[in-house]
């Protein structure tokens, strides 16, 4: 039994069957990558896991509990944090304030109207936020407005914000999309470090094979809304079905 169990999930947009019949099981404390060509349904699947979309059929169980019909904030409070394709941070706020928000959410829950304490005097939250920023090597940037960070730093901050909540499952949606090689490598190193140092399950949707093969322990290949194969990276590399899906090769042409 994995920490996340996806069974027979289907999703249709008008005439387009975005997800056919997806079955997926993610083992606790593993790194699981979901790859596939454009339009394979990767993002739709992810959106079904975090509450942005509700699948037409099937079930999604996290830690034995169904997440279907729950709002994104409720699913987050269950222990699933999400990193977006383009970093979603609070651009108008300082880096430290960015980091304090998930810390408040973790400690105080989805809504706590404490309007009469000074947030900077909440030592527990400030220290926690500073600690995570230190782990992310961003301590000296904590007074900067988040919007002025570099693309790589925004990604670091976003991942840090997710980690500060100590999620059980971290979902990453193409975390290196549009990044320069150096930033990509930094992100890979960061994710490797997270994987080694924490008890955390990571599910990653990625285009970049370099990223996938340096991180993943299991890989699911998605094509046209259905999983083609699920296997270890070594077996996936040479798999004929995968080559076919990616390169459009057929047995005859080869």
């Amino acid at each position, binding site marked *: 039994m994995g920490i996340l169990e996806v069974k027979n999930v289907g999703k249709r947009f008008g005439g387009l069957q975005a997800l056919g019949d997806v079955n997926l099981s993610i083992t606790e404390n593993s790194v699981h990558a979901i790859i596939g060509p454009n339009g394979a349904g990767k993002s739709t699947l992810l959106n079904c896991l*975090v509450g942005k979309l509700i699948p037409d059929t099937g079930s999604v169980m996290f830690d034995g509990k169904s997440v279907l019909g729950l*709002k*994104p*904030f409720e699913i*987050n*409070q269950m222990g699933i*944090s*999400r990193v*977006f394709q383009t970093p*979603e*941070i*609070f*651009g*108008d*706020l*300082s880096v430290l*304030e960015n980091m*304090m*928000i*998930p810390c*408040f*959410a*973790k400690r*105080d*829950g*989805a*809504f*706590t*109207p*404490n*309007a*009469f*304490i*000074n*947030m*900077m005097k*909440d030592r527990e*939250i400030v220290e926690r936020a500073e600690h995570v920023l230190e782990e992310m090597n961003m301590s000296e940037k904590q*007074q900067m*407005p988040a919007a002025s960070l570099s693309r790589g730093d925004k990604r670091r901050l976003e991942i840090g*914000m997710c980690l500060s*909540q100590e999620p059980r499952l971290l979902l990453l949606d193409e975390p290196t999309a549009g990044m320069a090689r150096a930033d990509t490598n930094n992100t890979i190193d960061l994710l490797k470090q997270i994987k080694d140092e924490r008890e955390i399950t990571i599910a990653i949707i990625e285009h970049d094979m370099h990223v996938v093969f340096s991180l993943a322990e299991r890989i699911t290949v998605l094509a046209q809304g259905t999983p083609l194969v699920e296997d270890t990276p070594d077996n996936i590399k040479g798999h004929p079905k995968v080559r076919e899906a990616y390169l459009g090769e057929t047995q005859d042409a080869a």
Partner: protein
Amino acid sequence: MFGLEYKDSRMLILVAILVALAPFMLNPFPEGSGMAQFNAGYPDLMQRFVIFGIFAIGFNILFGLTGYLSFGHAAFLGVGSYAAMWMMKLLTMNVVPGIIFSVLVAGVFSLAVGWISLRRSGIYFSILTLAFAQMSYSLAYSVLTPITGGETGLQPKVTDPRILDGSPAEGTIAKANFFGLEMGSSFELQLGSWLFTFNAGYYLAAVVMLIAFYISIRIFRSPFGLMLRAVKSNQQRLNYTGLNTKPYTLAAFVISGMYAGLAGGLMVAMDTQVGAERMFWTASGEVVLMTILGGVGTLIGPVLGASAIKYMENILSKINSDILHQWFAFLPDGLEEFVITLIYPFIGKGWHLTLGLIFMAVVIFLPGGLVEGGQRIANLFKRKMPGKDARDNKSQPTE
């Protein structure tokens, strides 16, 4: 002080001093001099400064922090006014129950309006609030006449029950008072040719404004305020960070509605009458202008914006062509006519034109409003003094 950081305490004390000394500072010109019409230190106008200051401070908690632009806040102001007036009619001419009741009623009303309007965001939210305000205005004007007095509005009458007050002398109406201190009573101080007026109503409203200002500082600096700013910055991220944005925005809406109700209640306490035109949509638009002119999302900005607009409304609009002729009498005749023709459209009834031009200039050149203007001037001085850290301002984006 009162749990505020040093910078905020300093600002609160500064505002308190300005408000306390306003009767002096707003009357810089001696009586009877040519400049006396620029004096703003009379009770009626000073009361309006602080009351609209409260209105704008509250509006800024919604608009400045969460970014939700309401076009219907005058409805809450009007509801607060009616509520306070009914307390005066039924209970007592003491203003305290009226003011408390106005806040409560406006809070309940804004809870209902916010509950529905906050289902949408952006322009749709603005339109929904506008629709509610116009409905309230129309209802107050026609259908609800038994409660609102319709076209004529409401005033205290001799026949009102006022169960807490003793029966007044035959044929007279008790004046609005604060435990016996009449709101209209003033102490006048004559110094040479200067006349300063200290009005009881103004000082009551000023104390209430300082309390309202203090609460707004606390909200800005609290975790609650942080979440409201996060709503404005990136609502999606907030949702995926495990925070339910709905109750946060609704709470901000209700708080700003209560501020509007408080302002409405105080208006009735100062000037015991209320009419439906107080809820008209232009009144809602005015508070938006005040907030933007002063500086959206800043602490002191809304108060500055409210004062600036009320000053222009009351002072510029009083200048007429006779006064212009007086001023420019020293010029040769032809030139005098020419100058007056140039200036005339901007004064008197044309004061809106001046306001419009100033508003455009502020939005284009000072997007942070008058507060940004002040900061730029302060920075000019700071740069000349070595040793001062210029980054001071950056660490606290919401001054």
